């Protein structure tokens, strides 16, 4: 009612537009702060000595000497010396990598995550193909069953597997716990449903006519899958690979349950969490966080479009 009496310059449309762009600018700023700031602060702290953080908690950038001492251990590459040992102790990154075993954890994480991706793809690609393309009894039950796995709390699966592993180790002498290779099989509980779901929603977009033409030309189903379907589904398979890699790289609970027994088998997330219990400067924890986080951010930035499309094509666990 009131609009009728206001000047046309102050029309509802105009006021809302002005207000809208104000809210927009504020929102962009807000989101920039909440998403970028924590990562910037992690980097900032990881480069500073803890004593300096305690004295000047709000210092926004590391001093030049701090940065220099972080990189000082690089001189060790020219040959070890007395000064070199001190340099490693004082450099957050070098200390974490060398003294606290992060080099081993990086190796374990790389092994575990790559094996998990390979196993996931080998299992999920044929299975997703069968569910989307082939006719068989129990097909819809199968594809619903896959989604049900999504629902089960990891800890419900974790307890019996934990018991099982302890027992097998005890009675058969097979070292299942503390073994980075066996844990990859358990990681599949997290990655398989994701992979199946993403592929299941992509395969139908591979043109059926191409497959049928090849079948008529006398190719077998397996040849068709190998030569036609898989190459055409490559974008989806790549995004599944990237996504399962990220899940495996970040995985914490199963690593905690199954690897904590033996330090040489720790993955990066477990190694970092366990570092917290030891008496280390908090800035070392930030250096460790940088080491875990950077590969993920790097890979994500390279393949962002892939991942975003793959993610939204099929809902994905998180």
């Amino acid at each position, binding site marked *: 009612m009131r609009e009728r009496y206001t000047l046309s310059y102050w029309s*509802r449309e105009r006021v*809302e537009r002005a207000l*809208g762009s104000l809210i*927009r600018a504020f*929102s*962009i700023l807000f*989101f920039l702060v*909440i*998403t*970028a700031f*924590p*990562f910037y*602060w*992690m980097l900032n*702290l990881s480069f500073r000595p803890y004593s300096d*953080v305690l004295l000047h908690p709000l210092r926004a950038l590391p001093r030049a000497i701090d940065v220099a001492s972080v990189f000082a251990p690089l001189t060790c590459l020219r040959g070890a010396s007395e000064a070199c040992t001190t340099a490693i102790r004082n450099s957050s990154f070098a200390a974490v990598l060398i003294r606290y075993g992060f080099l081993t954890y990086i190796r374990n994480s790389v092994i575990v995550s790559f094996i998990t991706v390979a196993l996931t793809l080998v299992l999920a690609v*044929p299975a997703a*193909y*069968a569910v989307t393309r*082939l*006719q*068989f*009894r129990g097909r819809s039950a*199968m594809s619903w069953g896959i989604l049900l796995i*999504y*629902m*089960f*709390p990891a*800890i*419900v*699966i974790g*307890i*019996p*597997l*934990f018991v*099982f592993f*302890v*027992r097998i180790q005890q009675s058969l002498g097979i070292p299942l716990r503390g073994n980075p290779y066996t844990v990859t*099989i358990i990681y*599949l509980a997290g990655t*398989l449903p994701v992979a199946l779901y993403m592929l299941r929603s992509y395969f139908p977009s591979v043109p059926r006519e191409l497959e049928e033409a090849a079948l008529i030309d006398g190719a077998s189903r*397996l040849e068709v899958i190998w030569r036609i379907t898989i190459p055409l589904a490559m974008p989806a398979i790549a995004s599944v690979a990237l996504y399962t890699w990220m899940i495996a790289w*970040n995985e*914490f609970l199963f690593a905690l349950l199954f690897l904590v027994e033996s330090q040489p088998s720790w993955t990066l997330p477990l190694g*970092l969490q366990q570092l917290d219990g030891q008496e280390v400067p*908090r800035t070392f*924890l*930030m250096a460790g*966080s940088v080491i*875990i*986080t950077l590969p*993920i*951010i790097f890979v994500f*930035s390279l393949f*962002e479009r892939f991942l*975003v499309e793959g993610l*939204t094509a099929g*809902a*994905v666990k*998180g």
Partner: protein
Amino acid sequence: MSAQPANRRRLSLRAREARLAYGLLAPTLVVVFLIVIFPIVWNIILSLQPIRLQDLPNINLLDISNASLNNYMRAITARGGRFWEALRVTFVYTIASSVLALLIGVWAALIVRDPFPGRNIFRGLLLFPYIAPVVSLAFIWKLMLDKNIGVVTLLLSRLGMEPLSYLTTRAYSVNILGLDLNVPLALVTVILFEAWHYFPFAFLFFLARLQAIPRDLYEAAAVDGASPSQLLWYITLPQLRAVAGTLLLLRFIWTFNKFDDIFLLNGGAAGTEVITIQIYQWLFARRNVGVAAAVAVIMALILGALVFIYLRWFQPEEEE
């Protein structure tokens, strides 16, 4: 008569196809059986037996002659009603952080929908909290919220807030407009963390849906003289309802099952002990495998029942 051979061939083709399908599915089914179905079934058996962590190597795990519901009784009558408290905390945590993550997600999606300089970088940045490892996210926030050297604590104290231990204070009394309120500070903090951690997931799906809304809907409404707020309220938001329903369900399930975030932030201290944390405590702090398994079964049953009810009665109609 003449149709018969063709018919038989088609049948055998179909049989061959089915056989191939089972062959392709078999490895996955074996793995799923080993790491999902077998553990779930065995978890039920474990929950009926009196098993302690130190007995594991020696007792006969398949002996169910002394099966009983004692573990369940123990779980739900545990000292001080801690099971019911954990259940309450789990619900508050799950509902609050799911809803909050969805709201922030919609907000972010509405901002990113319209172009502005640097939008693509901005969109990538918004996903950082979702893709980064939870272990480092938890450590970053723990340090930023530290009572003495945390940047958030210090900046807030410049605005007049007293420095608090955000992650280890069970209740903090504030006086708002003459009302004395007891804020469960640690719980609020982990809820905010969880919402921050997972809003990008909701954001992605809302954005995809927003970009699929047909332009002519807006043009038609604009011709009718609708203002920007009316467009938002009457056109944009209704289009997001189906996606919001699905996202809420997914976030609810996953948050209900979540263990890592709270475990890493404060270990379930100060009134943040959710059910998953309680299971972990039963298993490793009290070394009682049987009760841990029993709580896990109860948890899975509650979740299953809730999801069933949701799908049965509250599922928003599918989009056309």
